[in-house]
């Protein structure tokens, strides 16, 4: 007969895991197809072999042991929780340090806007060359900047 069903469909048909329309169609086909009837017979046989084989391995358990729980088994998770808290704290600390350093760097790279900030500003030579100008800062013996000049070409 044409359009024979495959094993998977027949397997699902046997387990009734198809919709009602499909089940009716397969039933009609099976009534007229000896080949599919044989395949279904083989499937049922394989299922029977599998189930009986697995049931044959059932253990011989005479008595259910009493459920016992020790304190160590209960506290095991608490230790894990402390570990988790520590790792969270460490990661937060690292985040704070990193963000502080980044903020400082951003502030440091900003150009001066008033006289006071001139002394704080450390000029970037690349920037100076790009703008075709050179900035000079003089320092006294104590290392304090006393003069800051920008020479433009």
């Amino acid at each position, binding site marked *: 007969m044409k359009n024979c069903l495959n094993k998977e469909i027949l397997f699902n048909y046997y387990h009734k895991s198809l919709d009602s329309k499909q089940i009716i169609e397969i039933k009609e086909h099976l009534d007229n197809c000896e080949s599919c009837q044989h395949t279904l017979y083989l499937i049922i046989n394989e299922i029977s072999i599998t189930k009986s084989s697995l049931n044959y391995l059932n253990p011989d358990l005479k008595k*259910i042991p009493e459920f016992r729980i020790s304190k160590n088994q209960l506290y095991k998770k608490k230790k894990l929780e402390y570990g988790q808290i520590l790792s969270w704290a460490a990661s937060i600390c690292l985040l704070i340090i990193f963000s502080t350093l980044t903020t400082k760097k951003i502030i440091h790279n900003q150009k001066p806007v008033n006289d006071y900030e001139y002394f704080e500003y450390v000029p970037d030579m690349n920037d100076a060359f790009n703008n075709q100008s050179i900035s000079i800062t003089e320092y006294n013996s104590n290392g304090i900047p006393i003069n800051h000049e920008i020479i433009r070409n």
Partner: protein
Amino acid sequence: MKISFNIIYNQYYKQIYGFIYKLTFSKKDSEDIVQDIFLSLYKEMKKRKTPDNIRAWLYKCAFNKFINTNKKSKPMQLISNMGEFDNISINSIETEIFRDEKRRIITNALSKMSSKEQILLNLYNEEFSYKEISEILEIKFTSVGKTLSRVIEKLATQIKLTSHEELLEQRNII
């Protein structure tokens, strides 16, 4: 809470033990894993509440524990643990030999399958629905039927083949 846990423990211990035993073939390993599973359930019940589908929850836990145990240690050696069958009390020697032989054929056939395939077969044997199997093994619902049909065919063929080979060997010996 404690009473309900005891009821669950007594109701499902044998089922879970049987399920694990058919995967490990070791009494000691099975007892350890089952103890671990019920400990997880105890903690779960103490922390939150009883799972909706306790049976499925226990089998899912069993599946995870078995897979983890297999990852940590070497894969369970079926044949090396076969000696434990000797301890089972059987009336006559002939019956004992026959039983051991049959078990050997089945376990040999099972050993040629992957852990997941063995678990799938055992879940099917425990009368779980396709939906429950897909949830426990975390596979697609649509692929359960396909995989099951393939795995059942594989096991049945393997058992038939091994039995046939054994029979031929016996004939040659005689």
